C-alpha cells in the first residue's frame, strides 16, 4: 500500500502545500487502494475514477493558481444517502436503483467549493435503517479489523472505507447512532453534530427531526476540519441554526485538566459486553489521569430512548418514504393500474426492515393511537432533553460507551428486532436530544478470539462541538489507539 493512503487531511495538507505530492497522486493512490482491497471490504457502492481524477486535476490547477485550503485535493467518500452531482444516489435501496439526482446536497456543494475530491458513494443499510449494512439492498460491507464481521451501520461503508484507508475521510449520517456506532466498531472517529448544525438539504430523509450528517475520520483533528467545512446555517434547510461556526481545529488544544465529566450508570446496560465495559472504564481512568474528574451519575430516562426513538423516527419515515411510488423516478414495477403499481413498486422496492418501520410509523400516527404513541413519545422526548440539560448544569460533558456489544459476525445479527434495536440503545437518547457527541477509539476487546475496536462516546452541550472535539483530542493524544491498523495486505 502506498503510504499516501495512510495520511490524514492535516498531514496531506502539509505535503500538498509544500508541493511534495499532488492531488492527482493522492487520488490515484486511493483509487488503487480501493482496487486492491474493496473486493474484500466492500465499502463502496459506486466509485468514479475518471470523475475523481478530473476533480483532482482541477484541485492541482487551483493550488497552482495560488489557492490554499485544508480540503483542496483531499479525496473523500460520501455515504450513498447524501447526493453528489454526477453520481447516483441509491440510499442502499432497490427503489432508487439508477436514480441520478439533478442536484447535490449542501454539504457536498460546500466540500466541492473547498476543493475536495469525491471518490465515490459508500454502502449503507437501506435508507440508513440498520446497524450493520446487512440491510443494504446490494451487499454487506466488512469490518476491516475482522472481515467476517460487520463494520456497523448504517454508515458502515463510510467507516470501513476510512478504516481500510480507501478514503482520507468520509461523510456519514447519524439518525440514532449511525455515525458513532460504526466509528466505534472500526477504530475511527465519528461525530454526530448538534441537530441544526449541518444542513440536511440534499440528504435523503430518514427521520427529519433526527437526521444529521457527520464526519468519519482517522483522527480528531481531521474530524474538526471536516465538520467546519460542512457546518453552518443553510437557507434551504429551515431547521439549521444561525449559530456561528468556530474554527474547530484551532480549539483542539487545552486538554481536560479541571473538567468535570458525568458517567451515566444507565449506559452500562445489562447486556453490555465485559470487554466494552473494561475499555470504557480504562478510558475513564485515562481522563482522570489527564486531570479531569469523573463522577457517576444517573440518566433515568435512558431506557425510554428506544421506544421514543422507534415511535418518532418511524412516524417521520413513514411519511418521508411515501414519495417512492414509482411515478416520477427510481424503480417502478410497471403494473397495469395505479394501486397495483404502488403495491408492487413498494413491495419489491423496499426491503424487510424498511417495510417493518413504515408500518410501525403509520400505526403510531393512526387515528386513535396518535395520542398514546406519537404524542406521548414527543412528551417523553422533551423529558429526555430536559434531563440532559440538568446534567449539563453539573458536568462539562458526559462519557459513556457507544455500543454495548462488539460487531456482529456477518449473518449472525440477532433475528429478534427488539434485541437488535438494543444495539443502538446508547446512541438514541442523545440523538433525540439533538446533542453533539463523538465516538473516539478507546482500545480493543477480545471476542471469540478476535481483537475488535471499542469506541468511547463523549456527549456535549447543544452546539458545543468544540468542547466535545477538545476532550476527544486530549484523549486521543494520550492513547493513540489509531496506531493499531487493520491487517489488510
Amino acid at each position, binding site marked *: 500500500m502506498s503510504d499516501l493512503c495512510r495520511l490524514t487531511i492535516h498531514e496531506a495538507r502539509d505535503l500538498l502545500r509544500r508541493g511534495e505530492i499532488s492531488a492527482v497522486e493522492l487520488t490515484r493512490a486511493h483509487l488503487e487502494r480501493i482496487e486492491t482491497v474493496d473486493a474484500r471490504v466492500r465499502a463502496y457502492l459506486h466509485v468514479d475514477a475518471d470523475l475523481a481524477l478530473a476533480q483532482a486535476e482541477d484541485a492541482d490547477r487551483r493550488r497552482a493558481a495560488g489557492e490554499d485550503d485544508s480540503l483542496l485535493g483531499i479525496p473523500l467518500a460520501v455515504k450513498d444517502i*447524501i*447526493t453528489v452531482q454526477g453520481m447516483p*444516489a441509491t*440510499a442502499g435501496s432497490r427503489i*432508487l436503483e439508477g*436514480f441520478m*439526482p*439533478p*442536484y447535490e*446536497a449542501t454539504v457536498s456543494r460546500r466540500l466541492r467549493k473547498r476543493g475536495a475530491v469525491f471518490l465515490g458513494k459508500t454502502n449503507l443499510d437501506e435508507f440508513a435503517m440498520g446497524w450493520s449494512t446487512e440491510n443494504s439492498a446490494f451487499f454487506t460491507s466488512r469490518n476491516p479489523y475482522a472481515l467476517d464481521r460487520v463494520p456497523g451501520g448504517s454508515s458502515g461503508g463510510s467507516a470501513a472505507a476510512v478504516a481500510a484507508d480507501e478514503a482520507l475521510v468520509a461523510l456519514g449520517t447519524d439518525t440514532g447512532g449511525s455515525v458513532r456506532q460504526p466509528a466505534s466498531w472500526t477504530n475511527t472517529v465519528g461525530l454526530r453534530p448538534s441537530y441544526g448544525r449541518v444542513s*440536511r*438539504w*440534499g*440528504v*435523503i*430523509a430518514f*427521520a*427529519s*427531526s433526527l437526521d444529521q450528517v457527520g464526519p468519519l475520520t482517522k483522527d480528531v483533528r481531521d474530524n474538526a476540519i471536516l465538520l467546519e467545512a460542512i457546518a453552518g446555517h443553510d*437557507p*434551504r*434547510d*429551515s*431547521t439549521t441554526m444561525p449559530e456561528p461556526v468556530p474554527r474547530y481545529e484551532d480549539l483542539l488544544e487545552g486538554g481536560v485538566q479541571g473538567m468535570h465529566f458525568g458517567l451515566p450508570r444507565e449506559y452500562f446496560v445489562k447486556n453490555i459486553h465485559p470487554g466494552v465495559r473494561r475499555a470504557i472504564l480504562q478510558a475513564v481512568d485515562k481522563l482522570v489521569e489527564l486531570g479531569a474528574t469523573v463522577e457517576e451519575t444517573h440518566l433515568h430516562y435512558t431506557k425510554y430512548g428506544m421506544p421514543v426513538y422507534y415511535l418518532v423516527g418511524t*412516524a*417521520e419515515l*413513514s*411519511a418521508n*418514504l*411515501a*414519495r417512492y*411510488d414509482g*411515478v*416520477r*423516478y427510481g424503480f417502478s414495477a410497471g403494473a397495469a393500474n*395505479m394501486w397495483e403499481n*404502488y403495491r408492487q413498486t413498494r413491495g419489491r422496492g423496499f426491503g424487510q426492515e424498511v417495510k417493518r418501520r413504515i408500518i410501525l410509523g*403509520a400505526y403510531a*400516527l*393512526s*387515528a386513535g393511537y*396518535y395520542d398514546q404513541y*406519537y404524542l406521548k413519545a414527543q412528551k417523553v422526548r422533551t423529558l429526555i432533553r430536559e434531563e440532559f440539560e440538568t446534567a449539563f448544569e453539573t458536568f462539562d460533558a458526559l462519557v459513556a460507551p457507544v455500543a454495548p456489544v462488539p460487531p456482529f459476525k456477518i449473518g449472525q445479527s440477532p433475528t429478534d428486532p427488539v434485541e437488535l434495536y438494543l444495539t443502538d440503545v446508547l446512541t438514541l437518547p442523545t440523538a433525540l436530544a439533538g446533542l453533539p457527541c463523538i465516538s473516539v477509539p478507546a482500545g480493543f476487546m477480545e471476542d471469540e478470539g478476535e481483537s475488535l475496536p471499542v469506541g468511547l462516546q463523549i456527549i456535549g452541550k447543544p452546539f458545543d462541538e468544540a468542547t466535545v472535539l477538545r476532550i476527544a483530542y486530549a484523549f486521543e493524544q494520550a492513547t493513540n489507539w489509531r496506531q493499531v491498523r487493520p491487517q489488510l495486505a
Partner: protein
Amino acid sequence: MSKYELVVGLEVHAQLLTKSKMFCGCSADSWDAPPNSHTCPICLAMPGMLPVINREAVAQTIRAGLALNCTIAEEAVFARKNYMYPDLPKGYQISQYELPLCVNGWLDIDAGEGTKRIRITRAHLEEDTGKLVHAGDVSLVDLNRAGVPLLEIVSEPDLRSIEEVNEYLSRLRQILVYIGVNSGNLERGAMRMEANISLRPRRSAELGTKVEIKNLNSFRAVRNALEYEVARQTRILDSGGEVEQVTLGWLEHEGRTYVQRTKESAHDYRYFPEPDLPPLFIERAWVEELAAGLSELPLARRARFESEYGLSRADADVLVGARATADFYEAAVAATGDAMTPKQVANWMMGDLFRLVKESGKPLQEASITPAMFAELLTLVANKTINANTGSRVLKTMFQTGEGAATIVEREGLAQVSDADVLAQAIERVLAAHPDEVGRYRDGQTKLLGWFMGQVMRETRGKADPNLVRQMLMERLQR
C-alpha cells in the same frame, strides 16, 4: 316552505396570489403552461429536498384572516396530511392541523334588509396538489399546480339557505379579490368549494346527519349540488329513512352527486407536525403592519358610500363590487368637485362608462380613461359646454382613443350652441319647413314639442343646449 331546515358549512380553497409556490421558487402562475414546466426537484418531491416557507403566502393568509375578523395565531404549526395519490408527489400534503394561522373570525352577509354574521372557524395555509389528466386509458400527471399556496377557509354550519350560501361565497370572493390575495377567477380554479350539508326538521335543535360534497368548482355547482342534495335527502326523510354519513362527489355534467367514500372507508390522514419546518412565530408588529395596509372592505365601503355620497344601497353595492371600480368612483367624485353631485357621477359611471367597459370585455383598470379624464368630461357637461348626449359620444371616443374630452370637443366642434341668435335662426328654419306640425301644436297637440326639439337638435348637429331650445321653442310656438 319545506318542513326541513337546511344547515350548511363551507370549506373554501382559495389560491393565493404569490409570485412563487409555497415551498420552492417555481412560478405559481402556470395557467396554459406546458405540463410539468413549472416544476423543480422540491415540488417534484425528489429525495432529500426540503421545503422553505414562502413569507408572502403567510402575509396574504394573515391579511385574509384580518379581513375575515380572525384572531391571528402567535404560533402556527405546519402539519403533514398523509395520503398517496399521483397528484401528491410527497405522499403527504403540507397543511395545518393544530395551531392554524387564523381562527375564530366571521363574515357578514346581506340577509333581507339587514346582515347576518357567518362564523369562520379557521383559515389556514396549505399547498395545492397537481392534476391528473386522463387521456384514453392512461392518466398523466401534471405537477405545475403542485405546491401553489392555498388558503383554506372553513365556516361554521351557520348557513341556512342556498341564497345565504350564494351570498356568503360572493362576499368571500369579493373580499379576497379586494385585498389582493385571490384572482377570483373561478374558471381557472382560483376557488374550489366543499359543502357540509344536513337537513333537520324545522324548530329542531339537533343537527341532522352531515354529508360532505367535494369538488365543487363554481358557485353554480355549489347551488346545483345543494339543490340536488336537499331534494334527495328530503325524499329519504319523508319516506322515514335515514341519511347515510358519506362523502359525495358532484358530477357537473350529469347534475348528480355520487358516493366517493362511506364512513367506514374514510381516510385516516395521520396528521403530525411537519418536522422539516419549525413552528412559525408571528410577530405582532408584522400583523399590525399588515392590518394597516389592509384597504377598506366592501361592506364598510358600501355603508360609507351611502352616507357620504348619498347613494342608494343598490348603487353603492354596484360601485364597491370591485375595488378598482370603487377607487375610480371616489377619485372621479373628488376630481369633479362641486360641478356635479356624487349621485350624478355615479349615474354617469354606472350608465355610459359601465356599458363601454362591458363592451370592451376588459376591466375598468385596463381602460385608457382615468378618473381625472372622466371628471373633465363631466365638468364639460355640468358647465353646459356640451350637452348630455354629446357627452356620451365624447366619452365613447375617449374610451377608444384615450384622448381628453376637451381635445375631442375642440377638434370636432362639439361645443354646445347656447347663442340665442343662432338657435333662433335654426328654430325659424324648422318652423318654416313644417307648417302642418306648427298648426297641430297650436291646436293643442303640445306633445309635438319633443318632436320639434329633435328637429332643432338635428339642425344644430346635436350641439344645441337642450334647455335653451325647449324654452325658446315654447315661446315661439305660443306666439
